[in-house]
């Protein structure tokens, strides 16, 4: 664990896609993703959430974004959120204090695994076939 007042920036580009059909209400899915990352980071004793935010593009190129600065307030979603999407390309930035980079990476992976546990959604890094 790093010092409480130290922060290691973490960024990654992800793909989310459905087992079949489309992802319904992608704004809700992204909100859950950010809140799961926050919860996992706090479980690992992060001293402070700077921000956990993402920019998302659907297959049609339309963009929306999500941001979380505290678990109490939850994540806020803004921009042109589509009703459904055949896939989502997510640029995710996690800035939390008190955790090392590998810990943040583990928190993100655990959050994604939790989100995809039902087998309806899959995730992978952009450019990667999973």
């Amino acid at each position, binding site marked *: 664990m790093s010092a409480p007042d130290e922060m290691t920036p973490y960024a990654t580009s992800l793909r989310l896609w459905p087992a079949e059909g489309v992802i319904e209400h992608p704004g809700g899915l992204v909100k859950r993703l950010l809140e799961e990352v926050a919860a996992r980071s706090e479980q690992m004793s992060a001293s402070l959430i700077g921000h956990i935010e993402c920019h998302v593009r659907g297959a049609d190129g339309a963009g929306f974004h999500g941001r979380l600065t505290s678990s109490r*307030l939850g994540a806020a979603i803004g921009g042109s959120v589509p009703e459904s999407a055949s896939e989502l390309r997510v640029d995710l930035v996690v800035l939390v204090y008190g955790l090392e980079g590998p810990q943040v990476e583990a928190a993100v992976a655990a959050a994604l695994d939790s989100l995809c546990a039902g087998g309806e959604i899959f995730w992978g890094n952009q450019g990667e076939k999973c």
Partner: protein
Amino acid sequence: MQLLLFSGFLGSGKTTLIMALARRMAGRGLTTCFVINEVGEIGIDGKILGDGGLDVYEITSGCICCQIGVDLVTTLEDISSRYDPDVVVVEASGVATPDGVLSNLVYYRGEPFESTRVVTVVDPTRLDALMRVVEPLTRAQISSADYLVVTKVDQAEAPELSDARQTLESLAPGTAVFEVRTDDEASFVPLLESVMRSGRWE
């Protein structure tokens, strides 16, 4: 050309305010350039501002107050020579100090700035935590401000708001303080009008 520097911790609401300010400036026919500095390899705020129709200069390979001030200087010189806009709005990274950013301007060789002002944005729901975890940064951001903006007043609990007011008064006595509600652009108007009045942009 006037310089307006937005400072404030990560997630305090800087980008939201800048988008609102941009709309008002465009409505008055002012030419404005935007420079965004973000921590980390991927810049999200620049993409959000881009979705909002703004063209922005992004500096994402470090912090402009302590690591890559030279990138800010060359960016401002490029803006000065290419566009010479009425206003340059710089959104500092959430971990930058205003004094650190402005100290780089001694190396700037473009058209001199007519004025330089600092707007520091404060999230009252986290100010207590910030004073515990990153106190020197928080003090530096607040004490250097020409304008202080308390955001999320609709989401903060009453004790958080009153503690925030006390902290701001203690760290920056006499500095103008504006309070704004999340996603309620009408509440931004007094701040935006004050900033524009002081810049003689009416």
